[in-house]
Each structure stands twice: as C-alpha cells, then as structure tokens.
C-alpha cells in the first residue's frame, strides 16, 4: 500500500507491505540505519525513535500506522551535517558508549526526557533508560552522559525545545 511518512521533517511517499514495521521501513527503504534492530519484539529498545516527540519502539509499529505522525530518528537530531547535538557530545565525553549498538536509542530517550524534564534526578534518568538494554557499558557512563547533557542544556540561553 502507498503511505506518506513525515520523517525528520521531510515528507516521503513510499510503497510498503502493511506488515513492514516502521523499523524495517526506516532501515531498508530510507537508509536511516541509526535505528537498530535488536530483538524485533519489543524488549531491547535498540529500535527507539521519537513518535510525535515521544520515545517508542519502532519494531512494534507497522509503517502504515505511522502515517500522520512526526517521526524523528537519530539522524534527525544533529544540528547540521557533521555536527553533533549536546547530548551526543556528552555521550562522547563521558564514554557513554562502547560498541554503540544501543547508543542512538539511548540518545533519543535522553532527548525525550530532557525536553520534558530539563532537571532530572539520577533516579529519573535511570527510569527513563530502563527500557533500553546495553550489553557493554554497565550503564553508569550513560547516566553520567545524560546528567552532563542536562546540566549543559540548562545553562544554554534558549527555550527548551530548541536547546536539545
């Protein structure tokens, strides 16, 4: 079937089978491979994207269901080509990643959290990433990264939605 998707601010027309998940559609048809396929049944969180600003699992949404919503992937959060967002920078600086498999999802979860709550407690950060599995870092540096990004964003002289 023909669908129209709003991905990272661009409208794209596509032909999909209804059973195509949003995840497969992003990866295979749009070459947006930042959303990773881990378990493909909702448990690992590697496929996280923002759906109307909210972090969701792209493997649990069929592509036709996404028509009419705004989808943001990791490719859509950078301020410009070759640049990194404040959150991405913070992940580099605190060694918030090793293999990087979980990282795009962690960054997007942090993104959704910090738009909603610019001043999260450590417990709120832990809760926000609790649905995302990381097999490498032991999570501590990921939590540090999000806390560092939060601190920097609070200091930025811009409205919240534009800061993150």
């Amino acid at each position, binding site marked *: 079937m023909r669908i129209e998707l709003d991905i990272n601010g661009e409208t794209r027309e596509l032909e999909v089978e*209804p*059973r195509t998940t949003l995840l497969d559609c992003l990866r295979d048809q749009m070459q947006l491979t930042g959303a990773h396929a881990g378990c493909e049944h909702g448990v690992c969180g590697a496929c996280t994207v923002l759906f109307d600003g*909210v*972090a969701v*699992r792209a493997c649990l949404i069929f592509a*036709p269901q996404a028509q009419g919503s705004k989808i943001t992937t990791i490719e859509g959060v950078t301020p410009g080509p070759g640049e990194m967002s404040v959150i991405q920078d913070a992940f580099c600086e605190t060694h918030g990643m090793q293999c990087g498999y979980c990282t795009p999802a962690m960054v997007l979860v942090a993104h959704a959290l910090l738009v909603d709550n610019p001043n999260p407690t450590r417990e709120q950060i832990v*809760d926000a990433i609790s*649905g995302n599995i990381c097999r490498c870092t032991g999570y501590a540096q990921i939590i540090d990264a999000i806390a560092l990004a939060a601190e920097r964003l609070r200091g930025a002289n811009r409205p919240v939605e534009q800061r993150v």
Partner: protein
Amino acid sequence: MKAAPFEYSRAADIDEACAWLAADENARIIAGGQTLVPMMAMRLARPTRLVDINRIAGLSYIRADGDAIAIGATTRQCDLERDALVARDLPLMAKAIPWIGHAATRARGTIGGSLSNADPAAEQALMAVTLDAVLNYREAGKTAEIKARDFFIGPMVTALPAAACLTGVRYPVWRGKIGIGFHEVNARRSDFAFVSAAVQVELGADGMCKRIAIGVGAATDFPMRLDSAEAQLTGTMLDAAAVKDAVTQALADIEAMDDLHASAAYRKRVAVSLACRAVADARASALGEKIHAH
C-alpha cells in the same frame, strides 16, 4: 521475526471497526500493538486483517462521570500515568501504572488493549477486578456492558464477543478516608508480575474498616478478589494478625500457576505476604501515616 502478511484498515469509527471484525473471523483489532505486534513477529498470532482503532476520534478520554471515572479504550498508559484526575480519584491505579512495562511501551500501550489481552499478570486487569470496574463494548451496532469480575474467564481469555470492540471502562470512585496499597514481585519492575496484590480501604473516623477490596494478580489464571477476607475484615481495626489469618484462609485453596519463573507454592506464599503488606499500607495511608518502602 517478521509478521505474516495481512491487510490493514484504519477504522474511522467504532461501528466500522466492528464491521471489519464481523466480516472476517481472523481480523483483529490493533490498539497500542505492544502485545499483538510481538505475538505477530513470533508468528504466535497471524491475523488476516488488522483493524487500527488508534485514530478513532473520541475513544481516548479520562473524565469524571457521576460517581465514577470513565476511561476510553484507546487511552494510553502514559496518559493515565500523568493524569491529575486519576491521581486524585483512582490512586490505586496511579500507583500501579509505573509497574506496567517501560515508559516506551506505556507511550503506546492502551488500557483497552491491556484489558482485552487479559494477561493474568497485567496490572490493569488487577485494577479492574479490585476496583469493580464496568467495561463497555460495542458489537453489531449495539452497546453492552460487563462487570470486570465477569469479563476475565481464563489466561488471555475474556467474555468479550469475537466481533466486539471494547470502548471504555468505568471505575467507581471511593470517597471518604481512603487508603491504598500495591505490591508486586517480578524480575525487574518493568517485567510481568510473578505475583501482585492491590488493596483499597475506607476507614471510619475511629479508624475502623468500613470497606475493603483485596485483589491478587498473576497467581491464578486471572486476577481474583479475596471475598472471604474482605467480609471477615470489614468492621475490624485491621489488626495485623487478623489480616494474616483472613488472607491466608482466603488463599488456602487457590490453584496457583506454576511455571519456570515461579512455582505454585512460591506464588501462593508470596501472594499471602504481598496481600498482607498491601492491606497494612492501605490502612496506614488512610490514616495519613508514612509508608516504609520495603
């Protein structure tokens, strides 16, 4: 891990959704997709058509309705989690929601999907049974209702007719000196419960129990109420020894589920402990005392 092929229809209203279901016995509703899509990915479910009810206008709401709170079937768990009316009038539900999966699954998962799915461990099923909710559904142009205690009839089995669409749920609001308690044991907070217990009490001015509802989830095929314990404890001061006695007796003859995660004997033992703790918390919160986290 890819779903088998199916047709997709986005229903504009409830009757259209019901018509699609009536036309094909293998058609299924999709709400949040947080249970159905994994089942399809694992090919445990192979619907021939998915009827998407997510965009039906007016099926997602939380509102006061007389002495009850009415919640629309496609209301998402995350909306309930943040709602001021739920926090004030359905404190037991507000307390249980953070235990349902993760933020990302609560962002999609709906209350109607959770109830229709009828997982024995689902927190929303336990809430509906404990709070004496009434479920409304539509089938072939007619509206009907069913009590939560008649709705769940087996693990993942409900009394909902095959071509029906659940439209909403009403939860009676308790007024007065109300207290609540909720406890759950699982591998991680976001995982399904091995056992859960939910209690709501109303105390009189003198601290005596005027009304109590005790529900236990995940232990048996569907959430149960401890009717005999409720009857025994009404009119008492909810003294710990009496509570333990009443709860132990009420759970003595249950046929607890037995699986890899938890044996039947374990589930039964934990059910007693959690129900006692939940009663103690409910009593303490009604009296305005601080509850110690365990």
